[in-house]
């Protein structure tokens, strides 16, 4: 895990891929074999034969999630179909001290579902029932393996949809969304997953089934639901999610606007938002990203554009009409040379297809690449983009930019050819430097992909030891055995019995009587 960061895809040579060395984050194979065997027995007693995977050939297909650079073969994979089965397996893990990692569709980009060699991978892909769509309450209750887009599909006939829409919405699961607090192109206006999950049934790391939140908009007491959403599987496993459904807008207008430079596109974005217009989405792609998307999906973006904005306006028709006039004006004032309005669903889909396929499409123009994820205040956008361009030209490493311009969530794609000596290291350096830029401009090391294993080493750059120790106290409150996705988020996993930090005296919060070391 040493210093690697970003989503490095394993294009390039297949043979000789080296997985990360067994570390405290991934566990040692063969550790606690008796415990694993015991968990396997519990699982087999409860589930059909195909629900428990121990065959080494089959286990290999679970080595990684959407971040293929890190690969660890789990000791056991379990595919439960019910909460009861899952809870029983978690209880067995707790009893035998076996670490577990939850996984939905396995599309995460920070290695959040990277298995443990000494642990069990709990896959929710068979828990995929939409239990209820409550139109009048504007809520749906779904199981964790339900695919994000399927919630929208189920709600659309009722006139509703599920707003958070990560680029992988056609396959990512609601459980994974909840763990990572996933965003998406439309979170500019509608917010992240945390704004749309109102309740969850959670299996605690001890195997207890608890309900956090519910149908009501707020629960008294501590916001445990808020703590759990985005906790990357370290506080338990969600077995249902009660999500908010949003009324389908009366009108949607999707625009594709061509600019000569990213500076112009950035300035247009700022002008639109500072005028009080809140589009559902403002997405930016630069020339390299456009080239990749064209190669992959022939999205027919404007010729010769140095940047495009994909802007979506939605709401009541009168409001959209008014906003459209303003957006058109701000784009023109900031140097747009082409503005296209999608006239039907097919054209709208094609515009979005170019944007949504962009990450994977970069594979068409570069043998290898790192997908970076950082966030900055929107106003810092032009400055950071220029700094990235300088980094790129001084290092000779190409960087394609795809991002949620509206809320300053950057996704620089750092291109390299792993076959060339030193190229991978140079790319990693640039990728890391981009994160440093985000931090120095008041941003953060991840906008929406999560920390996982990938950015754990960067946490100390953003947080002090005290900050991290405080987070550990929260974690230990839920998972004193340190078995729920251990090795993720935090750079040095600590057992809950240990005194956090390097200091000799008690943690300041403990000293002040505000917290307790478990």
């Amino acid at each position, binding site marked *: 895990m040493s210093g690697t960061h970003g989503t490095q895809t394993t294009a390039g040579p297949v043979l000789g891929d080296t997985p990360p060395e067994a570390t405290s984050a991934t566990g040692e194979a063969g550790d606690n074999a008796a415990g694993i065997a015991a968990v396997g027995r519990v699982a087999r007693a409860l589930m059909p*034969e*195909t629900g428990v995977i121990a*065959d*080494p*050939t*089959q286990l290999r297909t679970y080595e990684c999630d959407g*971040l293929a650079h890190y690969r660890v073969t789990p000791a056991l994979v379990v595919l439960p179909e019910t909460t009861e089965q899952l809870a029983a397996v978690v209880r067995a893990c707790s009893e035998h001290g076996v670490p577990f990692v939850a996984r939905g*569709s396995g599309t995460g980009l920070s290695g959040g579902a990277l298995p443990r060699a000494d642990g069990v991978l709990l896959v929710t892909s068979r828990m995929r029932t939409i239990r209820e769509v409550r139109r009048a309450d504007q809520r749906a209750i779904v199981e964790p393996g339900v695919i994000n887009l399927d919630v929208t599909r189920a709600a659309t006939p009722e006139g509703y949809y599920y707003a958070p829409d990560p680029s992988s919405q056609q396959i990512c699961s609601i459980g994974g969304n909840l763990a990572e607090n996933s965003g998406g192109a439309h979170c500019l206006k509608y917010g992240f997953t945390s704004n749309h999950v109102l309740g969850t049934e959670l299996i605690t790391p001890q195997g207890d089934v608890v309900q956090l939140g519910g149908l009501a908009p707020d629960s008294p007491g501590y916001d445990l639901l808020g703590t759990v959403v985005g906790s990357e599987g370290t506080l338990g496993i969600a077995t249902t999610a009660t999500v908010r459904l949003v009324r389908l807008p009366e009108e949607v207008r999707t625009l594709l606007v061509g600019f000569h430079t990213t500076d112009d596109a950035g300035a247009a974005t700022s002008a639109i938002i500072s005028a009080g217009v809140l589009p559902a989405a403002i997405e930016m792609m630069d020339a390299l990203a456009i080239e990749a998307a064209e190669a992959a999906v022939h999205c027919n973006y404007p010729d010769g554009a140095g940047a495009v904005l994909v802007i979506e306006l939605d709401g009541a028709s009168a409001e959209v009409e008014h906003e459209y006039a303003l957006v058109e004006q701000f784009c023109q004032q900031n140097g747009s040379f082409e503005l296209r309005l999608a006239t039907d669903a097919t054209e709208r889909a094609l515009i979005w297809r170019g944007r949504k396929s962009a990450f994977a499409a970069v594979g068409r123009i570069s043998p290898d690449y790192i997908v970076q994820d950082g966030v900055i205040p929107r106003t810092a956008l032009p400055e950071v983009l220029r700094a990235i361009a300088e980094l790129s030209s001084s290092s000779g490493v190409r960087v394609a930019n795809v991002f949620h311009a509206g809320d300053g969530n950057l996704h620089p794609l750092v291109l390299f050819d792993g076959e060339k000596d030193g190229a991978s290291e140079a790319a990693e350096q640039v990728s890391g430097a981009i994160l440093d830029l985000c931090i120095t401009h008041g941003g953060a090391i991840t906008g929406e992909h999560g920390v996982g294993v990938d950015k754990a080493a960067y946490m100390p750059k953003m947080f002090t030891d005290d900050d991290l120790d405080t987070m550990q106290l929260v974690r230990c409150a839920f998972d004193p055995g340190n078995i729920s996705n251990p090795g993720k988020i935090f750079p040095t996993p600590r057992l809950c019995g240990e005194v956090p930090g390097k200091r000799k005296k008690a943690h300041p919060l403990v000293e002040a009587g505000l917290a307790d070391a478990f």
Partner: protein
Amino acid sequence: MVESTRARSDEPQSDPRKTDALSAGPVPVGTPTLRSAFDEDHPPSAELISDCVHCGFCLPTCPTYTLWGEEMDSPRGRIDLMKAGLEGAPLSDTMVQHFDACLGCMACVTACPSGVQYDKLIEATRVQVERHHTRSPGDRAMRAAIFALFPYKKRLRALRGPLRAYQASGLPKVVRGSGLLDRLAPKLAAMEGLAPVLEKREKLPERVPAAGARRAVVGMLTGCVQGEFFPGVNAATARVLAAEGCDVIIPRKQGCCGALSVHNGRQEEAQSFARATIDAFESAGVDAVVVNAAGCGSSMKEYADILADDPDYAERATAFSRKVRDVSEFLAELGSVAPRHPLEVTVAYHDACHLGHAQGIRSQPRGLLREIPGLQLREIAEAEVCCGSAGIWNVLNPEPARELGDRKARNIAGTGAELLVTANPGCLMQVSSSLERQGTRIGLAHTIEVIDASIQGLPVTTLGPQH
């Protein structure tokens, strides 16, 4: 329950490297006693495998992932297995089971944003499986029977008499009602249930002249299953082509195009069918070779790859493949001149995988159908997911195929259309048996039969057997 249809392997393989394989490290290169999965003769390409970035966009369109929710039965999981094979893992029964379970529908190729050529990967893998894997005696016998029957018109024709007699006897109702065949021989039951109600054969001449001014000279593939089980489709194809100004050449000596063999890794058999098909059409002097069965057209467009290593045929195969057109593709390129009469009917159009995913032909058949006055086109939900036919997959995997067919039939029923139109004999057989089971009353027709009826001014009721 996702369990119900799971194709099971026998007991997990005893793997001497089991303890090693549990480690975090790569599966070690095979020990001298174990041979690795693939030989050096065109194994699945490491370069093509490396195009996969593991994003998972293929999962929701993969029929087996949809059924079972497991990585090993998903495109990216199968690619992981191929990679394991290249790295020295043996071709175990477990591994083969997951390759065999792939329907070859190529929905993943359409879905993949990284352009992974899974079609090439799985075809190369299947050839290796056929070369190195010993199947169970029952499976071997079943496959031998299928490949001794389907690609041969005369043998299929010999089957027509007894099949028609059986269908006329009232026995099918008894057999299906008893469920006995399902229990005793599910694969045989699958074949029984899939056999279409046979139409009368129409004998086609070797040359059908263009009506009016000649606009093109085309060859026509009559196919094996299409020709024997759906002869009306071939007759309609010839009539429509002639009506649109084509001289239609139908070489007598043509046989099976080899599609079933290609899709099941039977390389030598596929190559020999491909050579014979090229021979049959090469001397006919046609501008295009028109095909009305999606699976056949897709394979014939691949002849250049299939015969790439044959010095006598490589170039000829490339030239031949360039001429191959699906009938809807050809008609759309040609542009229609024959007047269309109205057909007042609502149509659900089903994309055959080997037309939509493998050949990228989606807009052409829809465009041709929309040209017909009065015809209303409806889209089927989950259009990208295979109906479960997939060549002979539904015969070899009857239970999951039935689940996929029933799912497709529900979506078709959901359109409320009166007529289901598609362009592949396999889909027609598969979907019609599911619709029948479900009790949905809907007509079934090939795209070209609808166009033919419109040109001839025939009523809708002439189209396809009504359920």
